[in-house]
């Protein structure tokens, strides 16, 4: 059982963009930190600990938290740097949760950032593979395999239409999000032309399906239950989270089909939180969707669906902001992807939804639970469940 409850009471993010040439890294982070502190109604003097993370090789800064102290306010404070690739942002949330729930710190500031303009993202990902075993064939998140599999399972026309409709829904959401990087103004009528005309990246993964490379930062303030109560702030409570990694070569245990890390994580998380019907019990899902194909495929995995239920959800518009199970009212990762911040933005957006502060992208219905996922590494998953009401804790029971 959780020792102490942890509430998210501050969220700040920068405008995500392909080129934030007007700011350097500490300045970019400073924007997000300032916004998060303003949301929480506090100053750095109130913060007890700073958690920092990104993908260090992408900008080629060694131990970047050292330099970033001049922008993140960590001077004189305890601080920790935790990274896990693309999942980093969600891992920072888990770390902040542990630091507060443990009683070690009462108020923790977590910062995820990336300035991809200053590096070579795919170059960075490519050297992830083992130099002796297949670095030359590593393509990072650029893979057409899911598109292939879905076309095989559901037929070319239906699969391609569903993936593109998914993309269009995400863009419609992004149009409501002033922080989103890519806001195209796609409409349903454009789907046939988009399928026919967008240039391929790998197989049937086209450039429009794929997430962007963005510059951006996200900061969040986590506080112990007694602090939240004292401040009288509306919080999104961290109900639970699950992290699931997998080995990197995808063939260490032979070729047998395994359950995906997404389904495994969801089964575990839902099982221990009494969630039997996720689409009814959870109000909104902020999913780390690196491409529309993955966003579509993983909807089935995360929601423990079978058959073509996930395709129907897209075809019927269920995943739209006004649908029965909104996914990514923020526009998701295909709209904005500052990698070290990306998974944190998912949790931050889910927290804004719980707190009713998501502005034009606020889901209008009332709900008690929100879900957020992170993706990274070799199909690693972090799944975070947020709640409107504080869960049971040892502290509350004693």
């Amino acid at each position, binding site marked *: 059982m959780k020792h102490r409850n942890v509430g998210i009471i501050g969220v700040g993010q920068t405008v995500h963009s392909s080129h934030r040439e007007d700011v350097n890294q500490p300045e970019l982070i400073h924007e997000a930190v300032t916004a998060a502190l303003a949301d929480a109604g506090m100053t750095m003097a109130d913060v007890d600990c700073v958690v920092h993370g990104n993908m260090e090789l992408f900008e080629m800064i060694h131990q970047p938290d050292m330099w970033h102290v001049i922008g993140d306010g960590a001077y004189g404070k305890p601080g920790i740097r935790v990274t896990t690739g693309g999942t980093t942002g969600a891992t920072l949330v888990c770390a902040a949760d542990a630091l507060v*729930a443990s009683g070690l710190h009462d108020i923790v500031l977590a910062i995820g950032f990336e300035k991809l303009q200053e590096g070579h993202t795919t170059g960075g990902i490519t*050297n992830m593979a083992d130099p002796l075993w297949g670095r030359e064939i590593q393509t990072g998140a650029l893979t057409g395999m899911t598109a292939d599999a879905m076309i095989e399972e559901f037929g070319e026309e239906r699969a391609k239409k569903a993936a593109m409709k998914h993309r269009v829904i995400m863009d419609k959401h992004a149009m409501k999000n002033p922080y989103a990087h890519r806001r195209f103004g796609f409409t349903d009528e454009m789907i046939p032309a988009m399928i026919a005309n967008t240039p391929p990246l790998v197989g049937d993964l086209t450039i429009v399906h794929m997430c962007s490379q963005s510059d951006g930062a996200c900061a969040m303030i986590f506080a112990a239950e007694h602090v939240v109560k004292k401040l009288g702030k509306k919080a999104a409570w961290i109900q639970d989270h699950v*992290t699931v990694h997998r080995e990197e070569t995808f063939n260490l245990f032979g070729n047998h089909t395994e359950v995906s890390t997404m389904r495994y994580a969801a089964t575990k998380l839902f099982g221990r939180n009494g969630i039997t019907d996720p689409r009814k019990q959870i109000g909104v899902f902020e999913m780390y969707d690196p491409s529309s194909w993955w966003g579509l495929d993983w909807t089935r995995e995360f929601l423990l669906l079978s058959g073509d239920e996930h395709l129907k959800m897209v075809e019927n518009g269920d995943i739209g902001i006004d649908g029965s199970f909104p996914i990514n009212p923020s526009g998701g990762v295909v709209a904005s992807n500052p990698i070290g911040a990306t998974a944190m933005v998912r949790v931050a957006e889910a927290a804004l939804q719980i707190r009713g502060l998501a502005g034009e992208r606020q889901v209008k219905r009332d709900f008690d639970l929100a879900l957020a996922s992170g993706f990274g590494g070799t199909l690693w998953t972090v799944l975070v469940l947020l709640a409107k009401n504080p869960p049971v804790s040892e502290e509350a029971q004693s």
Partner: protein
Amino acid sequence: MTKRAAICAVAQTSYERDKWYIRHQGMVWEVVEQLLKSTGLDYAEDTGIGQIVTVSDDLFDGRTISDAAVTDAVGAHFRAEEKVSQDGAMAVYYALSLILSGHTDLVLIVGHCKESQPGSRRLVTHLAFDPFFTRPVGLDYVGAAGLQAQAYHAKTGLKAEQLADVVVRARKNAAKNPQIKDLPAVTAADVLASPMLADPIRELMMYPVTDAAVGMIVASEERAKKLTDKPVWITGVGCCYDSFFLGDRDLTSNFALKNAAKRAYAMAGGDGADVYELSDMYAYQMPLWAEGLGLCGAGEGAKWLAAGGPDKKNVNLAGGTLAGAPMILGGLTRVIEAALQLRGEAGARQVRGAKRAVAHGSTGPAGQHHTVVALANEGGR
């Protein structure tokens, strides 16, 4: 605090200049295998190892997501793994928070680094400096340490000869640690004649290039009692950042270390220990950090050395990081050595009856971030 966590087992590979014969994964597995054997733990879904904290560095490993390279070796396939990209002592800090939070009751910590692999350690740490103001000057961690050492010599009257003795002592002590390989004894004259790296730091006054992997099992009180009869309790942790630009700092004030120590001692219910393990990557850091940890007064490090302080206070009896530990694992190797002392397993360097220990780690240029971990065995809790 009602809940507690303990180090239940520790493991380390040998420390060598160039482990050309083994890869990262091999070093890591050597450590994991030792830990599984000594604790009887496995990876069973609900009762085995489910939470892993790794320590490594993308730039030293020359690849992105350096922890992904060891996912299989640490057993993180369909388990949780999180990488602390900082001095390894922070992995202990983080593991403690994971256990006290109630999220898990068992954490495997594994760190790895092969400093022999990048062409130059100084090239890696050069990249820690901001590209606008400090990197064009050519700064790296050795250069930053040189500036700090200059300031410290000027402030305390510390002599190069005293630091030569620190190096001689470190190597003598290292000879009592069977895990440290290829580290010949040196004389003070050797140290003073070794090439100048960053005035006043000479080559032998800096820790040698080192390859190693290390690890430990940290568990809740309930689990710890089942895993070992010699638990080492983590009684206090503290850490702190200093400012980034060297000109913004008083390089000899120990601002961050004093704060880190204050926090750890407050949590542990007092300072004072039977054994101290400092991350002295450069010889001058032994007296400087000793001041920061309260082993002697501010500005009295040189006097403390002259009075035989390191031996009186049982500081770095295994040679410290000056005897060779990969930089990013420095603090973690100190926690492991302190744990060995408190388990009575420190061999020829054992302090009889040691009950409490303090271990220290540092990250960044000229000690920008410090971590202090206070430990105690059953006798010292």
